């Protein structure tokens, strides 16, 4: 039936690039010591140098300095660290008010909810029909007590890009710290912390063909942040635990391998998917913005059909995509993102997310859309909602 799996779920995880593995390998078999101080043994000093080089390379991509990068185990840890660490550090000085957007990914959203249970006051910012946060509401919600604002750079499901410069300017002007989850934009959409005054940013290797289990938190110099995980004094006493040096080296290599040309190619696949789906298949709605969108994301609702049925049919033909349907999610709840942009359960139910990566081609896009056209037609034939049309 088919001789390959076409993987179109690169927002969830990506295939490792061989060149990343190659860069990591010496740190498993030759330089496997911990990063020691300069007074340690040679292998430890080599390990430390590997870690420092990786840190330097990631810092320069963000326009940051080396000391401002803390390696973590990935997106979830980085966002936990940012919210919990800053909240604890400024609670007494400023207050216990936090603002996040409604469409944050779970690391931010559920950390905010957890802080709420601990007595923090959390406001959830509204977004418009494209998923853009309400800047006026943001300005009006900030008080003297506001400890932190956390708004993602781009959305994990619908790819909507926020005007992070405008958000940062508002926060800066009101003297409030800003964290941004840049998991889905890092290296894909420019973010220079010298130009955009964010104070903390979550980044991760798993979305850019790097190893999973490694990410980082950018922390602007002098940002108050408490250590939230107890243990040793690694990462300048900001993050306890044995450093994942092969991971950090792999992360830096993955960053180096993302070229502007690749991002343009991803954007072409995205645009082709969106326009072809809207042209070729009736009753399709684009979720998110046509313009303010990450290059690698297309999210569409195929009305009158259910997402898990579509993904299972696609899987049977060798295509891996994801859906915002409740039937697919681990909490059995429809996508909070699609509900927040004003969609109903039906819109979430029939939504599919295509997220592109290095190993996808234009032929893949044509093939998945061709298959989908048939699948949607078949499922609509048995749908009571479609029959009513």
């Amino acid at each position, binding site marked *: 039936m*088919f*001789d*390959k*799996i076409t993987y179109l779920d690169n927002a969830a995880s990506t295939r490792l690039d061989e060149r990343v593995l190659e860069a990591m390998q010496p740190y498993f078999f030759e330089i496997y010591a911990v990063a020691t101080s300069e007074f340690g043994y040679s292998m430890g000093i080599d390990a430390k140098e590997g870690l420092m080089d990786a840190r330097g390379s990631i810092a320069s991509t963000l326009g940051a300095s080396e000391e401002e990068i803390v390696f973590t185990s990935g997106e979830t840890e980085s966002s936990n660290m940012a919210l919990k660490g800053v909240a604890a550090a400024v609670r007494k000085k400023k207050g216990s008010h936090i603002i996040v957007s409604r469409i944050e990914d779970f690391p931010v959203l559920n950390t905010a*909810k957890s802080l709420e*249970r601990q007595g923090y006051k959390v406001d959830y910012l509204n977004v418009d029909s494209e998923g853009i946060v309400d800047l006026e509401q943001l300005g009006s919600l900030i008080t003297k007590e506001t400890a932190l604002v956390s708004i993602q750079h781009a959305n994990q499901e619908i790819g909507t890009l926020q005007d992070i410069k405008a958000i940062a300017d508002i926060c800066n002007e009101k003297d409030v710290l800003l964290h941004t989850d840049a998991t889905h934009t890092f290296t894909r959409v420019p973010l220079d912390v010298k130009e955009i005054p964010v104070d903390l940013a979550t980044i991760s290797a798993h979305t850019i063909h790097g190893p999973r289990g490694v990410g980082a938190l950018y922390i602007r110099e002098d940002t108050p942040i408490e250590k939230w995980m107890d243990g040793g004094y690694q990462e300048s006493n900001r993050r306890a635990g044995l450093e994942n040096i092969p991971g950090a080296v792999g992360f830096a290599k993955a960053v180096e391998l993302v070229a502007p040309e690749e991002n343009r190619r991803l954007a072409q696949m995205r645009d082709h998917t969106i326009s072809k789906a809207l042209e070729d298949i009736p009753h399709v709605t684009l979720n998110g913005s046509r313009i303010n969108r990450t290059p690698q994301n297309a999210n569409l609702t195929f009305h*009158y*059909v*259910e*997402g*898990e*049925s579509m993904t*299972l049919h696609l*899987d*049977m033909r*060798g295509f891996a995509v994801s859906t915002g*349907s*409740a*039937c*697919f999610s*681990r*909490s*059995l*709840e*429809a996508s909070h993102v699609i509900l927040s942009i004003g969609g109903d*359960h*039906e819109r*979430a*139910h029939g939504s599919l997310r295509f997220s592109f990566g290095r190993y996808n081609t234009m032929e893949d896009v044509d093939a998945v859309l061709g298959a989908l056209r048939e699948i949607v037609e078949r499922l609509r*034939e*048995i*749908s*009571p*909602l*479609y*029959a009513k049309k």
Partner: protein
Amino acid sequence: MLKSEVITLKFPYTEKVLEHFRNPKNVGKLEDADGKGLEGSPACGDMVAVYLKVDPETTVIEDIKFESYGCASNIATASIITEMAKGKTIADAKKITWQEATDELGGLPPVKRHCSVLAVEGLRSAIRDYEEKHGLVSEQEPTTEEVVRSRLKHVMNPMAGLDIVRTELVTKIEVKEGIVRVVLDLPSSHQFANAIKEDLVEKLEALWDVKEVKVVFTEG
């Protein structure tokens, strides 16, 4: 994965489920149906419509069709249940349980069973519709604690794949002047709290004399 390897796909469903998902039986609509049922679940958003043709003399289901706006387990269960009901009298068809249907399918993942319950309810509601139209229903009974309890046996606990009554999630039921209060042994922050609540509210609000449904979670 190397190209030369044979690609083996791993599905969370039995071969029988996949077969009914790929090629569902009795799909479509009966224009002059004697009984129709439409059931929906807000918890997962699925919907099933069941249409019956019944012989008035013998009450045997002569023809049955379904439509589904749902996931694989919903489509497969609806397909198998129409096969099971065809040729049975409405009294016998009413007795087909969700357990019998899932057994026939070789089982379903626990978390997916609530989607399949819907198909069983679709059949029962089509039969009820037939009975109402043909004067076979007795007086409407008022909602009591017992009625609530039996309705709640159709709300799934996704953790166990069994209903919330049998898995002892329901710790208290109160019915007073049309207001139903259900206490669940579950914190509101639980992964499935919202899904269960929505499902539960929808099942109870459908009762003719229920004005309001209150769900109380147990924290800590």
